[in-house]
């Protein structure tokens, strides 16, 4: 709880400081707030979800919160250059991000469907605004519109599912729902359809097929800075919500929905990776790859006793953020893969970060991405072997995509122009690269 409070307060502070157009100060406030929140989460065992004792492997939300804070911190660092450009709204950026982080934190420590829903909204609504914050650009506006309508549509669906579930079990408390379902009413149409609607809502949040449509458009429309935040934190929050609700509350109906999940996994991975192949906008490419990764994340549901998603989401975030930062270096204004040609030669740090990030996404050991994937496959293989094998084939196609990007970036340009990176981005790149490299020691 108190990390939420800390974030909220620092957000408000940020707003006031932002009015004075003090960019650095508001940055410091935001970072300080996040760090404090993380520390609070670390030192207070209060964040102990009642569901945790059902499974031995969900890291207690404290770790997830710390991860969320850490990722947000990186995102802010990476985006600071862009934010500091319009001094008028510097405060708004940070406070919006912090507020939505509050929502994310509410989502990952599920207790009550009501809080769940509210957390979801608190997470989403600021992002609607952030996406549309580029006042001048039509694309940003369009992205905002699409995101807003699809998002509120999805939350309506989720809400409907919650209502049905309430109708079936007569409670919003997850534990009660779980115990009621355990009595066998899990097979009642209300419960099932309710769970399916809830699933739909969450699948929308992580953007897997068939609720992925907002992804590419919104990613492309949003600015790099915002993308860094929304492509990581939203996914983490969403997947944790799914793992908690489905892995725990609905685990009695596992045999029922696992087939559906497998279908979603296979569809999203193949669709995402194959479609990513023919993109010429980097942010769209990242969007499609994130669709595929959403599919991978869903593998965590395969084994309700041992769903270790933590490694994967962190690896995914630590690989995605540097890519977007590099994109920020490559295209200051527009967003085109052509500008990626030979980007690696502009700066050694970029080269290293790029190679590490892409191979990590492709899941090549000994990088973090591999271990994330490995832990997922490890738990999923005995349960749904065929899905896993299909997923591996799809990830081979994914390797195609990332390799294409890598070769594009490594192509030796005719004229080498050195390009310097601002300090904040350097820090972010270094941290993420290190994180991807030393993952070996955290398993």
């Amino acid at each position, binding site marked *: 709880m108190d990390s939420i409070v800390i974030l909220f307060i620092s957000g408000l502070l940020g707003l006031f400081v932002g009015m004075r157009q003090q960019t650095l100060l508001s940055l410091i406030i935001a970072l300080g707030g996040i760090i404090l929140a993380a520390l609070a989460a670390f030192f207070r065992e209060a964040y102990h979800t009642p569901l945790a004792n059902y499974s031995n492997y969900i890291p207690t939300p404290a770790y997830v919160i710390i991860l969320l804070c850490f990722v947000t911190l990186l995102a802010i660092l990476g985006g600071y250059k862009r934010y500091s450009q319009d001094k008028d709204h510097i405060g708004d950026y940070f406070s919006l991000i912090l507020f939505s982080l509050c929502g994310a934190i509410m989502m990952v420590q599920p207790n009550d469907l009501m809080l769940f829903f509210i957390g979801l909204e608190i997470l989403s609504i600021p992002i609607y605004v952030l996406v549309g914050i580029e006042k001048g650009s039509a694309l940003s506006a369009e992205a905002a519109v699409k995101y807003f309508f*699809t998002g509120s549509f999805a939350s309506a669906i989720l809400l409907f599912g919650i209502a049905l579930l309430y109708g079936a079990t007569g409670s919003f408390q997850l534990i009660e729902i779980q115990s009621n379902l355990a009595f066998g009413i899990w097979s009642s149409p209300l419960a099932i359809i309710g769970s*399916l609607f809830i699933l739909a809502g969450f699948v929308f949040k992580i953007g897997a097929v068939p*609720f992925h*449509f907002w992804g*590419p458009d919104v990613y492309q429309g949003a600015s790099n800075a915002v993308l860094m935040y929304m492509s990581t934190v939203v996914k983490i929050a969403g997947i944790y919500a799914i793992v908690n609700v489905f892995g725990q509350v609905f685990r009695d109906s596992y045999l029922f929905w696992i087939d559906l999940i497998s279908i979603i996994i296979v569809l999203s991975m193949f669709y995402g990776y*194959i*479609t*990513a192949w023919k993109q010429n906008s980097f942010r769209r490419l990242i969007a499609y790859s994130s669709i595929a990764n959403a599919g991978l994340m869903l593998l965590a549901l395969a084994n309700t006793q041992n769903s270790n998603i933590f490694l994967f989401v962190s690896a995914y975030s630590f690989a995605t953020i540097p890519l977007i930062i590099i994109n920020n270096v490559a295209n200051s204004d527009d967003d085109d893969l052509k500008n990626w040609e030979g980007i690696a030669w502009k700066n050694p740090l970029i080269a290293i970060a790029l190679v590490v990030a892409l191979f990590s996404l492709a899941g090549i050991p000994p990088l973090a991405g591999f271990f994330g994937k490995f832990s997922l496959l490890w738990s999923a293989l005995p349960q749904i072997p065929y899905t896993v094998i299909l997923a591996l084939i799809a990830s081979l196609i994914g390797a*195609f995509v990332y390799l294409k990007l890598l070769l594009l970036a490594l192509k030796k340009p005719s004229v080498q122009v050195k390009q310097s990176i601002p300090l904040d981005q350097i820090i972010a790149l270094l941290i993420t690269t290190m994180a991807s490299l030393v993952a070996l020691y955290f398993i």
Partner: protein
Amino acid sequence: MPLDLTLIIVLSLPLLGFAVNGIFGKMLSKKLVGSIATIAVFTSFILATTLFVRLDGTQIVKLFNIVDHDNFKINASFQIDALSVWMSLIITGIGSLIHLFSIGYMSNDEGYYKFFSYLNLFIFSMLILVLGSNYFVLFFGWEGVGLCSYLLISFHYNDKHKGVANSLAGRKAFIMNRIGDGGLLLGLFMLLGQFNSLEYLEIGQSLAANTHLGSGAMVFIALCLFIAATGKSAQIPLFTWLPDAMAGPTPVSALIHAATMVTAGIYLLVRSNFLFELAPSIKDLVLYIGLATTLLSAFIALRQNDIKKILAYSTVSQLGLMFVALGFGAYSVALFHVTTHAFFKALLFLGSGSVIHGMHEEQDIRKMGGLAKLMPITHFTFLIGTMAISGIPLFSGFFSKDEIMAQALHHNIWAYSILVVAVSLTAIYMFRLYFLTFHGNFRGGENLKSKVHESGLSMTLPLAILAILSVFGGILNLPGLFFKGSAHWFDNYLSQGTFGLEHIHNVHLDFNAAIQLMIFASTVALGILVWAYFVYFKKGNLAKSDLELSSWEKLSASKLYFDEAYNYLLVNPLIKLSDFTGKILDIKILRNGVYAIADGVLNTANLSRRWQSGFLSSYLFWMIFGLILFIAFYILKISI
């Protein structure tokens, strides 16, 4: 000096010569290089003679262990017995003579030191071949000599005109030998499987212990060994490399392709006589192959015009003769002919070498003639060689051939008649060669005639020695009807000292038969001599140009179209196969197949991106659609 040490020195001297000449040869003067090589070989010849003198029974000298397998051990060990010592005498003796000859012959060649180091290497591996006490060591020498022969045949690889041809000839020789080697390998595998050993003695003894050992396996082994022999000793079907091998320098032809290497096949068969005794069917095969080879190659030799090619085909024919003897199980006889053949064929080749040297690299006998006056010593020695090979009485060749004829007459009259034909053909083409080369008038043009000269001492001395040898070589194995006491000395020597041969007793014809046989043979030979004298000398009948050849002459001149047949049957199909696999199967099917799959998968992207239409309403529609799918899935699930 202890026996094994002697042996080691015998072996290591040529190797040493090879090393010295190979490394420092560039800096040393030509004379020095040549003498180093020659002395090395000659010394080992001396030591070999000491071995020969002190020879008693069979002795094994084990150097070190190569492979220590569960079932068997393979040692680098050597065997000193009558056979191996005799062979090493031939090799080192003839070898040193030819080295001496080469000093003069190669005197104006820039690859001088290379040549001599190769020669020494050859001597070394040949000694390994004959002295080894098991098939493994034999195989080392076997491939070693093949390697050296490749190096020496393609020695003039960067010759202006014939460079490519020379290297191709070398390649052909190596590949054809490789086919034989493959056979030998298979035989070795089968031997190992059967006996868990490759030692001659062990195999022989275990065979002697129980003769009922799987005869099928014996047949297989014998067949494989025989294939190897055909490869090395240029028998049908693997003989076409030997005529091409004449691309090498003439001393090489004399040493490798007449005296020593090509007889390795005969050595192998003699060495593994106990195996062939158990596989009579293969012995018959040997006989037939030998007959066919000796007849056909003699026929081909009739109308060749390259002095060395004629000698090459005669070598093939003589080797066929030896295989006939082997086919009759007359091993010592075959080896006797190996010996005499080594004498006179080396003589002939060196003679031709001296001719070519004098003629400034001219090899076509149609351009020669009347050389008798220009190079008398060469002429005289060459005449002796010719007489020896064509079996003029009391020359060495007479006796050795006569032995084989005797075997044939005793076993199989048809074989005998074929041999008669072959032998007379031999006489014919040899005398044709002799007369066309040395008599009549010079046909090479005046300016060449002025340059023709007799060769130096270093070349004529070996000729003289070899001439003496090929005159008196017959003494080694006189037939019974002359001096009773020392008769069949070589037979006894060999069959006492060589494992397996003591059981095999060569038939010796009774007095009358032998007399008739000899008289018949000598009349034939002399008759041909007279005939040839009239045809080629008196009438001055010249070799026609290729155009006005009659049909059988064409057949002979074009080598019975063996090369063409091989190209048509083996080479072209292989090339076609290679092109097919390389261009069609590998690239078109396998490689592009992979590409096609990848493209097929990735190009669906064009389809899948259309789904993202950009219209919000369609997105909402698809979301609802997804929901409906979920519910449909549920209904499906409960309905099942």
